[in-house]
């Protein structure tokens, strides 16, 4: 089963979505957060050693209510997700 997810990119990964627009992405389910990051890298043609690819590797996936770490399954019911690079609040 394939679903379309809309991604919002934050911090240094905002460079993945031109003009800050949400980014649509096709994703094969079931998928973990790590699988989703692989799909993003493929869709954006990221070179494995590039700064953006390395930042993507260090990023988590978020919904409005929780954070998905690499091993977490992304629920099929979610259509809007956020890409969360390392955080630096405070």
């Amino acid at each position, binding site marked *: 089963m394939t679903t379309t997810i809309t991604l919002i990119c934050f911090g240094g990964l905002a460079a993945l979505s031109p003009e800050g627009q949400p980014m649509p992405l096709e994703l094969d389910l079931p998928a973990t957060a790590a699988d989703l990051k692989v799909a993003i890298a493929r869709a954006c043609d990221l070179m494995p050693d590039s700064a953006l690819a390395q930042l993507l590797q260090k*990023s*988590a*996936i*978020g919904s409005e209510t*929780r954070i998905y770490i690499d091993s977490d399954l992304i629920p099929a019911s979610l259509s809007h997700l956020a890409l969360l690079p390392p*955080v*630096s*609040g*405070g």
Partner: protein
Amino acid sequence: MPDLLTCDRHQIELSLAPIPLSAAAEFCHDDRYGAFASFVGWVRRVNVGRLVTGITYQSFQPLCRTVLTEICQEAEQVFGQELRIYVQHRLGETRVGDPTVLIGVGAIHRDEACEACRYVIEELKHRAPIWKLEHYEDGDSGWVPGNCLCQERRSRDRRGSTGPE
């Protein structure tokens, strides 16, 4: 969605407007309490040897409110249900000297006020989905490296740990 999340025991605010430093003490005041502890973070002039002119803050606000609420609830579980906790974080553009984060905790005794305040700021720095774009005097800007959320869930066992900043 409103930028203010409040209940009887804690108030969380993400704001584009300047932070009024008196807000935490006002929210946390209670005749039952004998102690109030607070933390204020400011934009500093020099970071890693570079002259800073300001910081632009960005947040995934719905999740940020959820995470900050969880942190306040954890602080209550660890340090006592009688706490009152105030958290405000600035978003958008700030300049050197501007307050960027304000934490306040009211409690019956000073120990739980101080420890809960430290817990909330440390957990906020490690877990809240907030990012800072630092602006430098030479015209350059850069996203500040931070804490990775993707590999493990931070637990209450780590309370009291300190970061580099």
